[in-house]
């Protein structure tokens, strides 16, 4: 096709949007809303997954030691524990440090401890970190058998429940995202299809005066891309603002909950929305045309 035809066709795609403002607005709104829902869910599950990862990394076993172990015995124990399989870190906490930490945690009520301070009832201990929650029980039992270890505290039930919950969250998030993705594609392509259907007459007339299929299809294709871009832009913008709001509030209301920083996560999610929006817009508006082109 000649260049003047291309300029005409590109112009036509803009005019198509202008001439069918209501249909176009409906398409953009539908796209924006469904992409936004999808985007929110993706961001939410990325964060949940991040929280889960943080919690997992904090899984620890505490091994309390008898008081009468010499310094060399403590060193030996440390080596023995860190050479166990699945152990990712070992940290020694002596009883004085443990007491001052406890004081810190108690804050204004720290004077409760004054009575016991002289004789410090706490024990020296090791904090043992393991690769994943499922290894906690195994490692704990091995640590317990080591000479000099008085008691092992690993909250096994909590750990295994937590890891089950985390796995369930990950699987269901992935599942819901897939479902939402399919729903988004269906909703958008249906809206665009309706917009094309309403212009069946126009296509028929084009074909009657001798338009080639490409001539008919290009403006619809370009129009679909433009609408897809617009929908994705709106969704990304709202998502961006919503995440700012979320961050501002989460730091105030839930200061200990770990959240992902805005970038690069939102850039990636937005890029995904743009790709999805334009692809569905373009295909959704040019595929249903095929039927009308058989004139």
């Amino acid at each position: 096709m000649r260049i003047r035809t291309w300029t005409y066709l590109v112009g036509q795609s803009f005019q198509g949007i202008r001439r069918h403002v209501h249909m176009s607005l409906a398409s953009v709104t539908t796209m924006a809303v469904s992409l936004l829902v999808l985007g929110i869910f993706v961001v939410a599950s990325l964060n949940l997954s991040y929280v889960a990862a943080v919690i997992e990394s904090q899984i620890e076993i505490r091994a309390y030691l008898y008081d009468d172990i010499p310094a060399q015995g403590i060193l030996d124990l440390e080596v023995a524990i860190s050479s166990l399989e699945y152990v990712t870190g070992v940290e020694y906490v002596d009883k004085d440090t443990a007491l001052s930490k406890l004081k810190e945690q108690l804050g204004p009520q720290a004077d409760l401890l004054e009575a016991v301070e002289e004789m410090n009832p706490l024990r020296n201990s090791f904090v043992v970190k393991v690769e994943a929650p499922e290894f906690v029980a195994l490692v704990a039992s091995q640590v317990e058998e080591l000479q000099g270890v008085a008691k092992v505290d690993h909250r096994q039930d909590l750990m295994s429940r937590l890891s089950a919950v985390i796995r369930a969250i990950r699987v269901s998030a992935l599942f819901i995202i897939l479902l939402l993705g399919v729903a988004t594609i269906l909703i958008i392509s249906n809206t665009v299809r309706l917009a094309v259907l309403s212009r069946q007459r126009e296509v028929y007339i084009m074909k009657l005066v001798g338009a080639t299929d490409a001539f008919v299809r290009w403006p619809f294709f370009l129009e679909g891309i433009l609408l897809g871009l617009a929908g994705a832009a709106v969704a990304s913008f709202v998502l961006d603002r919503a995440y700012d709001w979320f961050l501002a509030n989460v730091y105030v209301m839930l200061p200990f909950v770990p959240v992902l920083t805005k970038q690069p996560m939102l850039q990636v999610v937005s890029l995904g929305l743009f790709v999805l929006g334009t692809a569905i817009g373009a295909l959704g508006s040019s595929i249903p045309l095929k039927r009308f082109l058989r004139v």
Partner: protein
Amino acid sequence: MILLENASKLYANKVLALDGASFYIDRSEFVFIVGPSGAGKSTLVRLIYREELPTSGRVVVFDKDLSKMRPREVPFFRRRIGVVFQDFKLLEDRTVFENVAFALRVTESTRREIKRRVPAVLELVGLRDKQRSYPRQLSGGEQQRVSLARAIVNNPELVVADEPTGNLDPDTAWEIFQLLREINRRGTTVVVATHAKEIVNRFGKRVIALKDGQVVRDEEKGAYSNED
């Protein structure tokens, strides 16, 4: 120019719209297709510009057997034919100028050519001053003239019209037929399917009469019906 050989059309709903129709229309002829509703006039017109293909028999236009035409040739074939309908088939959201220019855009005409051809053809149909109007601002007769202008702006060799005056009052209908006759005088073949008995009788042109999908009469300088 147009040759039908035993052409039949059986629609999917088992309606036999055309039943072994045969005739030949020569270059520069003016031909009326007449007959009662349901006689197969519209189907015949659709066969000529290849919206439909015959179920059996042959339809040959411009020396081409339409059943053997490849799909990508069809747009180029249609550019040689101007089609006019009872319901005008104008684009409501475009001006008169754009509706007519549309047929030229499709053929990738230059902007200059469009600026030259469109006003000229609107002048011919008497709508030079309505270029910027929209179809809904025009009367039925004016809308049909726009559609005529669109049909002839490409200088087609053939114009086919399906009940072009079915929605118009007799005076306006007469004007439309005058225009068709003028187009024919300039050398274009014109085929009109119509109910307008009076006009057919006054024109004294060739008449092909259909009944139940069959050609029952084909006369030079004919009238709508012999029985009247």
